[in-house]
């Protein structure tokens, strides 16, 4: 992976973690690994979807990727950008 890609991925990850901690109030999201499953309820799923749409132009209409891991969110954001 190029350095620029790494930087971009880190920026996306930071933005996602900030959203999870400060908007969804998921304190643990600060430190969980990319692969850890988050406890996401249906209301939070909507919030995550809106966040991905508005911040990364992610279109989830055809996606089957579960929105319960930070890695999945990063992958979706990178794929859309």
């Amino acid at each position, binding site marked *: 992976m190029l350095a620029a890609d790494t930087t971009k991925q880190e920026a996306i990850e930071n933005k996602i973690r900030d*959203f999870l901690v*400060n*908007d*969804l*109030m998921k*304190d643990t999201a600060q430190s969980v690994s990319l692969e850890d499953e988050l406890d996401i*309820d*249906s*209301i939070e799923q*909507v*919030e995550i979807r*809106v*966040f991905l749409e*508005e911040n990364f132009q992610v279109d989830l209409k055809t996606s089957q990727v579960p929105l319960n891991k930070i890695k999945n969110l990063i992958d979706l954001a990178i794929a859309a950008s």
Partner: protein
Amino acid sequence: MQPYIDEITTAGDGLHDHYGERTPFTMLKAEQNNILIAEKLSDHVKTWSCINATGGYGAGFWTGSYASLSETISQALLECPSATDEYHSLDRLNLISLIKSLLAHHTDTTPQEWEMTFTSTGTEAMDFVLQQILLEGYSLASGVHAHQDKDVLITCRGAWHGWSVASLQLLDRRQFTDGIPKLPNVTNSYIRYGDIDSLKKAFATYSGRIRAVFVEGLLGDGGVIKASDAWWQELRNLCTKENARLIDDEILTGLRTGAFLACPQGIKPDVITLGKALGLGLFPVSLVAWRDKSLSPRPGVGVRTFNARPLQARIINQALKSFLAEHQFEQCAAKGLMLLNALKEVVAKYPQVYREVRGQGLLLGVELAKPYAKKGRFIRDTLLRLGVLTEVESGQLGTHIPREERVHETLRMTPPFSITEQECLAIAEIFEKAGQKILAGENHALYS
């Protein structure tokens, strides 16, 4: 009874889960303002008594006072005809006369100014109001809508106005609205409840296009927030200037805040809705009252199977008359103030758990501190295990709301008016005990 308790506390009562997770608690029996609760533990079923500080979504305002109505109910069951809204009824006349006089007194209007109809649930009342608003100015004969340029409906962030397809359109929360068809030719705009600047900005942005503004007497689900008299006056003035209808949704707030309505005395809404407490916790009864004849629906719109049937009307009328004779508005205000002040002391002691207590009369909310901003269910369950039943309000937490304006989940209390001063103090003590336990790191296995 024991085998049934084992079964129900294990498998539940069979009702569909609308929450994503229903509570583990079963309500076994009521006694005055207390409820006997059961919960299945690993090796036995535990039962204990809790103070009912909710009335069940605010509907059971008369819970604890039913004994005084038993004679009226028995007589009404024997005597009241099943008169639909196509026929007249003396019982209905008595109820409507009483409610119109209460509305007139609170709004500094006359009873004759008000038109009224009854619906069943609060949702149905708000759906009826939406029909009134959308149909005002529409000619069935020509198909022309005189108000078609007025396409904007304003509501408050965090507001709740019911579950129907139409009333859901008034909400700012996409978890409730996504996937549901939008009302055609309607633009929704959202203001911050109680914020004069937000109000003025919306009216400036949509000048000439605003058809109606929907507000609650106190913002309920958005965090139990009270607006100032100045905000209400500004809202009334702007609506008048804009020729927009002011809808005051008092379904949650009516009767319980120390007056008939929660909006300030003298404010004149165009439409008022009542529900919840109005039905005494016995019937789903709601009503819509309006002042302007142009809001009266055309024939055929608004017919209801249950439009204050005489049985309902007589019992509600008797309950309201007793309530007034006992000066219960004053008592609600006094007991609510006592509870508010007691809770303020608790909140000051445990700022790590509780952020603020707000409200008026017997409609109070304790907003949770940031670490518990979305842990309302956990705190509610903790409080219940310690002996007080509360309900979780959503607050205002969406990403569409600036972080500094967000309201955390809030524990709402809408106790029956029969709640005693001792019970109010006990509620505050239980909030204190919960604060202690939570800070001490004790969690779900909390029992008094």
